[in-house]
């Protein structure tokens, strides 16, 4: 079965702590997306990669969020200093090309206390 693997499924952090989550994209998918799904179920695009290169990212990502997709290692998204407003489901997705439907992982649910 095709699959995007995200770990951990759940992450609990205190305010100001680092929070790191990982994603293994589907084999053969060079494009990786990170989305934040908030409590209202809205998707917010954070960043995307093609292979190891950042294609696009939003301002929020540039300031407190860092992400990378090294070759031969899982992709990762890290929040340097977690805030309560970061509590959300973080979804990783991958695709073969930019215009193809992304395949989603099950997400990492972050709770910032």
């Amino acid at each position, binding site marked *: 079965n095709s699959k*995007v693997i995200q770990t951990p499924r759940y992450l609990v952090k205190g305010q100001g702590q680092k929070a790191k989550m990982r994603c293994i994209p589907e084999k053969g998918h060079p*494009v990786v*997306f990170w*989305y934040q799904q908030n409590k*209202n*179920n*809205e*998707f917010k*695009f954070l960043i*995307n990669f*093609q292979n190891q290169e950042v*294609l*696009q990212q939003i301002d929020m990502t540039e300031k407190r969020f860092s992400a990378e997709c090294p070759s031969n290692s899982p992709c990762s998204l890290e929040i340097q200093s977690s805030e309560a407003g970061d509590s959300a489901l973080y*979804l990783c*997705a991958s695709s073969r090309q*930019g*215009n*193809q*439907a*992304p*395949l*989603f*992982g*099950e*997400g990492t649910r972050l709770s910032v206390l």
Partner: protein
Amino acid sequence: GDSVTQTEGLVTLTKGLPVMLNCTYQTTYSPFLFWYVQHLNEAPKLLLKSSTDNKRTEHQGFYATLHKSSSSFHLQKSSVQLSDSALYFCALGTGGYKVVFGSGTRLLVSP
């Protein structure tokens, strides 16, 4: 910029009735439209996709037709089941490596 609008936040229906969930989009590029379904505590899963104008696409009893003239890609099903209760997202890809999602419609099907 590119955007997707889903007008209904919540749709409640009785089992066996037809449903249509609205989706319109805005883009200056050639559009690729997707419908995803997300059940509770699960990953969003692709339900339908299309980039061909006026061609109906179907999967698992759901169907949609991309109409570029009206920038729409409404999701329909002729008879909903209890298991169709979920969140449904319309999404737009433009080939620019960014996929934009609508705000989602929750479908609740009652017995």
